[in-house]
């Protein structure tokens, strides 16, 4: 049998596929018909993954930069250089940027390298904080730092709430599963400031004013409360903290809600009624590159908790990770204050366990986020080790250039390499065994399918070498042993091993331990035996304000046409052609406006206009679309650096959730 099962490694859906490799190249990729999540489907990226895997744009050998010139070096030379350099800095000056695309084993070893060998807790996932917000809220509420539902159970949900996520473009197969549930009779309600594809496929679409998603969710929760639609038994028997939440809802008025969201109260009431009628329900929202803030996620969770739609089959509050191993990255402790499985540095029991297992005294002072350090002047950060990363460079290029030492570890060529003094190639995921944890906590094993190009080391081996060079006695026989160590240290992964995963078609969802030997599809309240905590919420709704001078609210959102800087897409042909289409028409970015707005401004498609905010101005091309409301405009993510510099002045609004919103006016030029 030449076809080998595997996992797609683009987005957080974790679709199953089969691959046929031959003589150093991938000949074929084909969907896995019976895979529990993808059920035989793949998206344009997944169908063309062989183009990425066959690209020649891989890093061919270790490189060391001397006097501005990059020279090829051996692994020994490069590893010695890196270990030596890092040892020369105090731990508080060293940072690690982990890759949300790398395998669990690689992420774990990087985390161990940072903490056990170089004694620093400054390790961040190379992606924004959005997913951490989701995990914080869900962990505090349920004890589970991950999606509470299961993608496999979407077909069992009678009500699906999609909040501000262009899900058919970001995680297409999850979008597909939601659509199919609707074709079979489930109700979909989408709440978004833009008419996305899933909005068109919904039973009901609430086209809200930009920046008002939290208010919209609160409005539904308020209707549930006021109309007596709460699941009183459930709230009484299984939850804590409802009073504080219901009190915060009482202060909202009909007028404030309608003014802020642009939606009449009746619509929210009808959503509340549909939610009540459904026996099972799930909520989906983007988590990661521009996820929601904790307050908003808190409201979403509380809405489902008060409706009794949590803790059983077909139910769940589901943050959707945009990258294949973003969930795994947090599971592996790639955060300044976390150990694996959301165990904290502040927990003496956990610290004792790790210290004893690793034979080192751990530094228990939490580190800082690498991005915070890079943004601060003067920066405490002097050395940085980066794995397979392209996002941060856009935000912090100047700060990174000022660092004393940067080491880059990756498989594909990447602009970040220009900023590194040492570049260390590592083998691609199909060249070694490794596991990935998708957005529904599903740990899947990807087995080796190709031999790595001559001399290129797999990630686990490379990281072990650096550790050994720095004096640590790491002796792993292979990635399976690394997973065994993860399992020993991580209660949620306790029964997971490569051997078990090899026989588990479709992977295993954690927690998988003595209590849950087959894994845990959905958060099971009865089994977990916990009380659900309502998320504390602020009761404050900061709405961006438009006015006479700045009459439009500009959303700056994910561009479905531009996926994570297109770094991977650029190495393909067909996905690049598809992802490039908008870029080629609008190379400097665009501002999307409604036809009425265009008429009022007397502009046509592709015409240049000047977008002016209270802070500054930016020239953009016009794109007319019916997907935005007349009082709103939309600019895509790929013009982000210009938007930060010239329209906003700082990146903070862009960290606040799905649609960063800025009041603007548009001037004809």
């Amino acid at each position, binding site marked *: *049998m*030449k*076809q080998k*099962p595997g996992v797609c490694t683009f987005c957080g859906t974790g679709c*199953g596929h*089969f691959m*046929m490799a031959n003589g150093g190249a*991938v*000949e*074929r*990729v*084909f*969907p*896995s*018909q*019976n*895979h529990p999540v993808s059920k*035989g*489907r*793949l*998206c*344009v990226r*997944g*169908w*063309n993954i*062989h*183009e990425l895997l*066959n*690209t*020649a744009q891989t890093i*061919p050998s270790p490189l060391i930069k001397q006097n501005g010139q990059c020279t090829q070096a051996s692994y020994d030379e490069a590893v010695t250089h890196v270990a030596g350099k890092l040892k020369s800095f105090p731990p508080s000056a060293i940072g690690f940027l982990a890759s949300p695309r790398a395998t669990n084993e690689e992420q774990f070893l990087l985390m161990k390298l940072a903490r056990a060998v170089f004694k620093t807790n400054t390790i961040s996932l190379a992606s924004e904080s959005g997913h951490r917000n989701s995990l914080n809220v869900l962990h505090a509420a349920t004890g589970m730092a991950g999606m509470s539902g299961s993608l496999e159970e979407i077909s069992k949900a009678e009500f699906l709430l999609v909040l501000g996520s262009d899900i*058919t473009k970001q995680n*297409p*197969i999850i*979008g*597909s599963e939601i*659509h*199919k549930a*609707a*074709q079979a009779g489930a109700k979909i309600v989408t709440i978004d400031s833009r008419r996305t*594809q899933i909005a*068109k*496929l919904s*039973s009901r679409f609430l086209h809200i004013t930009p920046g008002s998603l939290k208010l919209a969710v609160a409005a539904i929760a308020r209707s549930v409360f006021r109309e007596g639609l709460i699941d009183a038994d459930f709230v009484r028997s299984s939850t804590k903290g409802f009073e504080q939440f219901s009190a915060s809802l009482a202060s909202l008025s009909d007028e404030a809600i309608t003014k802020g969201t642009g939606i009449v109260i009746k619509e929210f009431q009808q959503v509340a009624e549909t939610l009540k009628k459904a026996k099972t329900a799930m909520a989906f929202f983007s988590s990661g590159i521009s996820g929601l803030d904790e307050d908003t996620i808190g409201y979403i969770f509380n809405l489902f908790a008060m409706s009794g739609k949590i803790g059983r089959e077909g139910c769940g509050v589901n943050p959707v990770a945009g990258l294949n191993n973003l969930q795994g990255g947090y599971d592996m402790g790639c955060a300044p204050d976390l150990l694996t499985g959301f165990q904290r540095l502040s927990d003496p029991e956990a610290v004792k366990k790790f210290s004893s297992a690793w034979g080192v005294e751990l530094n228990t002072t939490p580190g800082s986020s690498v991005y915070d350090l890079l943004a601060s002047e003067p920066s405490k950060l002097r050395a940085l080790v980066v794995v397979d990363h392209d996002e941060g460079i856009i935000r912090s290029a100047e700060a990174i250039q000022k660092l004393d030492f940067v080491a880059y570890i990756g498989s594909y060529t990447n602009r970040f390499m220009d900023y590194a003094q040492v570049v260390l190639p590592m083998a691609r995921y199909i060249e070694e065994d490794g596991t990935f944890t998708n957005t529904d906590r599903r740990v899947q094993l990807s087995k080796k399918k190709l031999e790595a190009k001559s001399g290129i080391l797999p990630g686990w081996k490379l990281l072990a070498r650096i550790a050994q060079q720095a004096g640590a006695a790491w002796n792993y026989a292979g990635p399976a042993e690394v997973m065994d160590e993860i399992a020993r240290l991580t209660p949620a992964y306790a029964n997971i091993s490569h051997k078990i995963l090899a*026989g588990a*078609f479709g992977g295993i969802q954690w927690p998988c331990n003595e209590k849950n030997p087959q894994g845990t599809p959905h958060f099971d309240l009865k089994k977990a035996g916990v009380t659900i905590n309502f998320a504390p919420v602020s009761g404050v709704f900061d709405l961006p304000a438009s006015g006479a001078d700045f009459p439009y609210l500009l959303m700056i959102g994910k561009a479905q046409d531009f996926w994570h800087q297109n770094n991977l897409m650029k190495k393909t*042909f*067909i996905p690049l*052609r*598809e992802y*490039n*289409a908008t870029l*080629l*028409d609008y190379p400097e970015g665009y501002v999307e406006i409604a036809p009425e707005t265009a008429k009022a401004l007397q502009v046509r498609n592709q015409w240049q206009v000047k977008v002016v905010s209270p802070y500054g101005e930016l020239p953009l091309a016009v794109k007319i679309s019916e997907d935005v409301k007349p009082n709103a405009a939309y600019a895509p993510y790929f013009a982000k650096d210009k938007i930060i510099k010239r329209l906003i002045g700082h990146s903070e609004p862009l960290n606040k959730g799905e649609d960063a919103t800025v009041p603007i006016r548009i001037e004809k030029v």
Partner: protein
Amino acid sequence: MYLIRKDDILTIAKALSSDYQIYGPAVEPLSGQTFFDPVTDLGEINLAAPIPAAPPKSVVFPQTERILSYRYAGGSAPVEIKPDYKEQPKALFGLRSCDLTGIQCLDRFFLGQEFVDEVYRYHRKKMFMVTNTCVKPFTYCFCVCTDSGPAAEEGYDLNLTDIGDYYLVESGSAKGKDLCEKLKLEKAAEKHRAEKNSRIDKSISQFEALSTESKAWVSRVMNRVTTGFAKEAVWEYVGDQCLECGACSFVCPSCSCFNIADSCTASGSCDRLRTWDSCSYEGYSRMAGGHNPRKPVEDRRNKRFFCKLSYSQSKKYLRPGCVGCGRCNWVCPGDIGLPNVAKYIRRETTSREQL
């Protein structure tokens, strides 16, 4: 016409394996998915397995391959161009009639029309085809609506039909006959042919009960397609559901659109690659400079459907392009495989509420 005991069926494959690389249906144990791939251990072949998930067209039209490589250093340096045509004798053992029809469509298209496609011709040389009659249909099948099954009628070297303890082995070419004679197969009688026909009738009668996923009155819809009468709102409903993944073209046994890209390696030589492409993609028809005659997704869905059921017939294949395999139905992330689109057109479905 010959007979061979069921237990001995692999002797045919074994005999072929000395001259050909054998391809046959095998079930991947962990997932239960059927593939039609090169087989080294003939014991893996399972003739009772459902139609393979991936269409066997990849045997003659691979998903990605290099068709030539070139090297040019610039200036007055010479240009070295090396074609990379691949030729390998292949025996397709256990091909279903729908997939055979797909290969026949590809033959007429690649080897006919104005030019012969050399790349395809090389893949296609020295191919021995042993088809396997479907004595019962599978969940997504509808070959009875597209005149492509459940039994192959021509174009094979050998055709197998399971008639109980034996397989009926019909030869469809001199190559096929020679093999049967070489293996000294028992000659079959008229009663065996009658048994075959009754099995085919039984298979056809089971479509209603077993092929539950692809019920579509394709022939009825052909009328609307050829007269161009399908409501525009139906195409918008179809287009709304399209996730532009390209899967429908990739799994279709008769789809053959491809992309050409030059990929340069670090050593200075460039590979000209040919990969599967799909008219579902927006970039498929986009011209340099930005003009895109098929930009809205509903236009692309419309085009694909018409191409498959109408345009193809007059010139390319001389028969409808659809072979009734049903793959586009299970692989589609929306709900718009060909049978479903046919259903929407016939019923003029423009929204989910009308389902």
